[in-house]
């Protein structure tokens, strides 16, 4: 597996754990390393245990890593919950301010008690204990206090030089203390070349930037973890591009506003999570039948109902693919890494206008709320395509009232769209079935024509690749996943391939239109298909069974729905067992 260094900080919620994690990760990112982070938090504001992990590698990854090399504990809970994750030779750093700290008996982990709070007090303020701990960490992993300087300057520069200096001094004190008292060292992976185009960014932030770059100018949203950050980010950036954010009164209003803005010619979206998505189902159908573009971001979390609000899952597949009554064409994209969160959101606006239908971009809490290094974002690749908007000139040539907004003749099922304000472009968008002009009607023949027209839209869809495959031709064991599971599963694939297993990795980027043609060869060639997903019923696996003819007995599931993301090893164990069972079949 990828050589890495795993570092984790833990404490009580509200104790600055997030910012400590962020300072460490950003500093290592700026040194050129690839970082992958994971925040464990609870649906509480104060108290409760929270921790933040940072994985440092010299290659890009989409997983926060199984191994823990350094644990930094601000409270006893952190030791209790996380000590067992430390590898042999790992280091526990804890604050001696923890009264009667108890550390499990062991002779394999280096224990470094440090008076973090006390040193911080000497440096000026007890809140700087996180800085002291940066210094201790630096001493152990072979960095210098100066390696943290740029981040300290950025974070505290606004508060004056004095604050910056005392923070740097706190780091130095921690560093000196560790040098004097401990000899434990942990080696960092090889330092990669520093590339300036790299970003340190979360899925939610990438979605937000993708929306802005993709022309979104009205965001209507109702707060819900883990999607709220999208709203924060867009509120921050919109003034630069002339867009506006409405904090709607509920998710129904949010999605209806998004539909209203799109109808009026403004690219608009809403972002939500499971409970909100459920509330939007009636509106999804409205966008479909009225052929109004719509973009919905679903940052999935653990359900059902309020479930585990701060934990991750991938269990909204059925809702996204089949939710809402009746039948409409829709597109469901599943970005597999943070970079794709950016591009798929951008592209979602083109697709929504090109096909005049709803587009759902499915991420999850794991990818949405955790930052990682993105190699580069080639923003110039993107071109805005507004689809079939009718021009004022075209409208002027028509007889008054002759504009057929829902013309059934185009082969691709997409008719020209007018925008309020356009002379002679009048039509009524509606949820009722209608004729070609847009007048409500119930005639069976016309109804069938309109249904067929809409269904035609996505038949030849090939705008976004449906899946990516790597691996041996005719691989016997095929690993399949989608969304954020592609990151850890890729590591499993690499490991098995290195062991000489006949293995392939197929990651799905699009659930609708389902990429049947693109993937059926891989599925049909494999002897076993392992589908890894974060839900309890195997929703993706069931789609494969539905859309792909052939032997359904070869599908196996690797499922997790505890709320915690998969460890690479958990997937590996399952995949390895399958690979071994295949070997046995051959030798028997």
């Amino acid at each position, binding site marked *: 597996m990828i050589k890495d260094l795993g570092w984790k900080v833990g404490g009580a919620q509200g104790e600055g754990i997030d910012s400590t994690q962020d300072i460490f990760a950003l500093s290592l990112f700026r040194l050129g390393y690839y970082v992958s982070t994971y925040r464990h938090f609870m649906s509480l504001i104060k108290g409760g245990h929270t921790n933040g992990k940072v994985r440092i590698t010299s290659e890009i990854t989409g997983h926060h890593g199984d191994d823990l090399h350094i644990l930094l504990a601000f409270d006893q809970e952190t030791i209790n919950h996380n000590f067992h994750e430390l590898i042999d030779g790992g280091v526990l750093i804890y604050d001696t301010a923890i009264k009667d700290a108890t550390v499990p008996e062991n002779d394999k982990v280096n224990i470094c008690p440090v008076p973090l709070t006390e040193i911080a007090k000497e440096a000026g303020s007890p809140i700087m204990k996180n800085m002291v701990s940066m210094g201790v960490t630096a001493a152990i992993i072979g960095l210098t206090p100066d390696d943290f300087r740029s981040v300290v300057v950025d974070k505290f520069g606004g508060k004056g030089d004095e604050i910056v200096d005392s923070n740097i001094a706190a780091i130095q004190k921690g560093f000196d203390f560790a040098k004097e008292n401990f000899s434990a060292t942990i080696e960092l992976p090889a330092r990669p070349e520093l590339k300036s185009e790299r970003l340190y960014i979360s899925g939610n932030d990438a979605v937000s930037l993708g929306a802005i*770059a993709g022309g979104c100018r009205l965001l209507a949203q109702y707060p819900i973890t883990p999607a709220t950050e999208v709203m924060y980010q867009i509120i921050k950036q919109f003034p630069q591009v002339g867009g*506006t954010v409405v904090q709607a009164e509920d998710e*129904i209003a949010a999605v*209806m506003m998004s539909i209203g803005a799109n109808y*009026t*010619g403004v690219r608009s979206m809403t972002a939500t999570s499971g409970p909100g998505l459920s509330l939007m189902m009636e509106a999804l159908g409205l966008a479909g039948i009225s052929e109004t573009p719509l973009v919905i971001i679903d940052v999935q979390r653990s359900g059902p109902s309020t479930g585990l609000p701060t934990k991750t899952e991938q269990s909204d597949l059925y809702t996204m693919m089949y939710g809402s009554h009746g039948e409409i064409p829709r597109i469901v994209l599943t970005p597999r890494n943070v970079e794709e969160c950016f591009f798929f959101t951008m592209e979602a606006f083109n697709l929504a206008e090109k096909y005049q239908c709803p587009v759902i971009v499915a991420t999850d809490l794991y990818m949405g709320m955790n930052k990682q290094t993105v190699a580069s974002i080639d*923003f110039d690749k993107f071109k805005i395509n507004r689809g079939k908007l009718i021009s004022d000139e075209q409208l002027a040539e028509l007889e008054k009232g002759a504009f057929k907004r829902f013309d059934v003749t185009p082969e691709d099922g997409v008719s020209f769209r007018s925008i309020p304000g356009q002379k002679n472009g009048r*039509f009524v968008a*509606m949820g009722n079935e209608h004729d070609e002009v847009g007048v409500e009607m119930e005639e069976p023949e016309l109804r069938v024509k309109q249904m067929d027209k809409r269904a035609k839209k996505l038949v030849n869809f090939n705008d976004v690749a449906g899946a990516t495959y790597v691996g041996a031709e005719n691989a016997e064991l095929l690993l399949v996943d989608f969304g954020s599971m592609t990151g850890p599963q890729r590591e499993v694939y690499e490991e098995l391939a290195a062991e000489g297993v006949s293995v392939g990795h197929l990651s799905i980027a699009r659930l609708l239109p389902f990429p049947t043609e693109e993937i059926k060869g891989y599925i049909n060639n494999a002897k076993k298909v392992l589908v890894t997903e974060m839900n309890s019923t195997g929703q993706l696996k069931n789609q494969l069974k539905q859309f792909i003819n052939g032997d359904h007995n070869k599908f196996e599931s690797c499922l997790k729905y505890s709320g915690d993301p998969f460890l690479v090893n958990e997937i590996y164990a399952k995949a390895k067992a399958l690979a071994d069972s295949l070997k046995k079949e051959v030798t028997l």
Partner: protein
Amino acid sequence: MATIVDFRAEKPNWCPGCGDFTVLAALQKAAVNIGLEPEEMVTVSGIGCSGKLSQYMGSFGFHSLHGRSLPVATAVKLANRDLTVVAAGGDGDGYGIGMGHFIHAMRRNIDITYLVMDNHIYGLTTGQTSPTSDKGSKTKTAPEGAVEEPVHPLQMAIMAGCGFVAQGYSGNLKQLTELIEKGIQHRGFSLINIYSPCVTFNKVNTYDYYKANLVNVDDDASYDKTDRFAAIRKIEEAEENVTGILYHDPSKQAYDEVLRGYPEQAIAKNDLKFTREQWEKLAVQFK
């Protein structure tokens, strides 16, 4: 200049005598009187007999979901502030399923005019109790008489900070037209509740009933429509059997005037260009 013909679309299929015909006629006349062109106006409606209004009005239209006209209308206005936006629906649509949006649209003071065709009954679904049905009124879903208090939209709107609150009546086209004109001209959210009889399912709140009971505050020179507490008193005294402008405060700023980041020019008229320079500025925050 557009004429009434330009604002006519499909032939309505309301029951003969339905109060909604007058509402449509008043809206068409008001649009002409103000000098609007059909393409400069969007009528957004919910679902119900009343919701059909958007189809019959010759402006751009959006016949949305049951109870959801206001969020759509809000976004249409935000997307293009140069458009005149009218939202419309019934008492069930607006004060039942859509009640939440009603209060919040007023809170935002978005510049739209909201016409509620209040017939005290659910028409399209053939005669169930509505939120404005009088206590004790017998309907298909309350055969022994409704036991709930009705909602009081006028008082509610005044208390929610709505800057233009009026009530019209389908038996008075002239007054209703004026109310709609003034409502459209008011910069901010305007509520016009309209007693629009359902001749098929409501045998109590009929034209005769209103003729006998309604008083018109527009005829009363002593009525001070800028005093919100006096307005509420008047409405309560008359047991809501009043027409005219009940409350008007033109001083409040509309939503699009106070929204952060809202551009001078209508959003719909801006191009979507996003430059490399803008991208660099965003990206640097993540380095």
